[in-house]
């Protein structure tokens, strides 16, 4: 199995766009987007993200940082 690097900001924005219309420049991630993002990450990486980390994923940059942390330690 190929080990994927953690997603960057552009990828996270791209995945969120899959949920529907998202005004450009929107930084804050709402609860539905979080569920969607976690769904995307867990499908691609085959991991389950812990609740405590999810609470921190409130903006795009925070999500990228958390995912870098969690997915790096996972591999």
């Amino acid at each position, binding site marked *: 199995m190929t080990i994927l690097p953690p997603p960057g900001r552009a990828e996270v924005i791209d995945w969120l766009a899959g949920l529907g219309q998202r005004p450009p420049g929107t930084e804050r991630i709402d609860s539905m987007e979080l569920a969607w993002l976690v*769904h995307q990450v867990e499908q691609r990486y085959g991991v389950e993200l812990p609740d405590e980390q999810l609470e921190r994923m409130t903006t795009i940059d925070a999500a990228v940082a958390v995912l870098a942390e969690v997915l790096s330690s996972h591999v």
Partner: protein
Amino acid sequence: MGVLAFESFVYNDFGARMAMDDSFVVPGIEKWVDEVLLDGPGTQVCLRLPEVIDRAKLRRLVQERQIELAQSGLRAGGAAALRLPPSLAFVTHLLAVWRSGGQAILLDHRLTDYEVRRAIERLVPQVVVAPAGPVVAGLRTFVDVEASIASYSGHPASTAHAVVQLSSGSTGPSKVIGRTAEDLVEEVKRYTQIDGVPVENERLILLPSMVHVLGLVGGLLYGLHAGVELVPPARLTGDAILQAIAAEPTPATVLGVPFHIGLLASVQQSRSLPQFKRMTTGGELVPKAVSDAFEQKYGVPLGNMYGMTEVGVIGTDLYGQHRPAIRPAPGIEVRTVDGELQIARKESPYLGLSDPARWSDGWLRTRDAGVVDPETGLVSIKGRLDSQVSVGGLKVDLTEVEYTLGTLRGVEAAVVVYDGSITAYLQLKERRETVRLEAELSQRLASYKRPRTLHVLDQLPRTTTGKLVRDLTVLRKAVS
């Protein structure tokens, strides 16, 4: 509310009513809770969390909660505010409040302290039930919380409603909606007459919060009444929903909002799920492409429901045959006046002075544009006539957001629009950092009501007569 009965019996573990020992202090027993919700075989599974809660256990837990609530000061005719996330604590306290002849004020646990304080000051409950510690919910649809009960007042409830819910209001504070026990029972019975709802010994995979009407009545109350197992998935992900369906061989209906269809439609590897019977969503309309993709992937009907907090379920299309129209539920009378859909309702559902713009002369104004087909009686919903939007199935009135922004220090004027998400445009009268404004707003508005983006402009666009412009194109241009 029905007549209170202070009868001396409890349930034993076999579901039989058992005479009470005189030394055991039991609060009042409101009959409808037993007759409509709690009666049934003691071994029948009510909730799978995955811990199995059968009727006998649920009845025992409810009685324990009744005693605790009574010890904290809840009396028949008094109100208890429940500020709990969907949880066993919520279910048992809610049923205990009702069984004790009390009124349950449901406060979404995501509301801010500010919003809760305003609600409590207005509704004056006798007790407030809240989590004993911080809740880390993550993506859990049902959480494990320990509840703590605080005594608040000795006042009786201001009305005889069994449940009181807050809805995002049109002018500042949330509007307050009350429903009587009779009305709730009527809605539960209405569900039993709708073809396509889950039936006894089937399962309901419950995704919406049971603090709001769809999950509360369509999920919890109907499930308890009909003997349908309620199964909240472990987490709100596509995989977890499918795991919940696959966990038992009995037929499973998924109840959710349109967002959940997208989650399920995007699961990469779908497994064979012969027990998957149907998915039903409430909330906004589902685009045809989305419903087609879902039905193609899972081969089960995608049903649609339309309702509102004030009434509960109004109409359904559980087989997806009339999309996007719905058929009024049994006992629901609808009409349109000047393009607005109205629902027959004898009493105003609103606490306090009744606003004729919302209810008058036995008709509830939905503020939804609608068309009723004279031939078939089918109803088509054509969108909102006011500033209310749906965020993940939760209704948010943009004027409430605008009003609250206007209360922040330094804000001269605010325009809030829905641009794929809630977006605010502000004009300030003194220099303020956006992050500070967002932080202050987070103290006053629940997260799902808050603008995703705040744009601060030197001058908000105005018409020649000085009115604020709400046109999206103009507002976007003003930013660029």
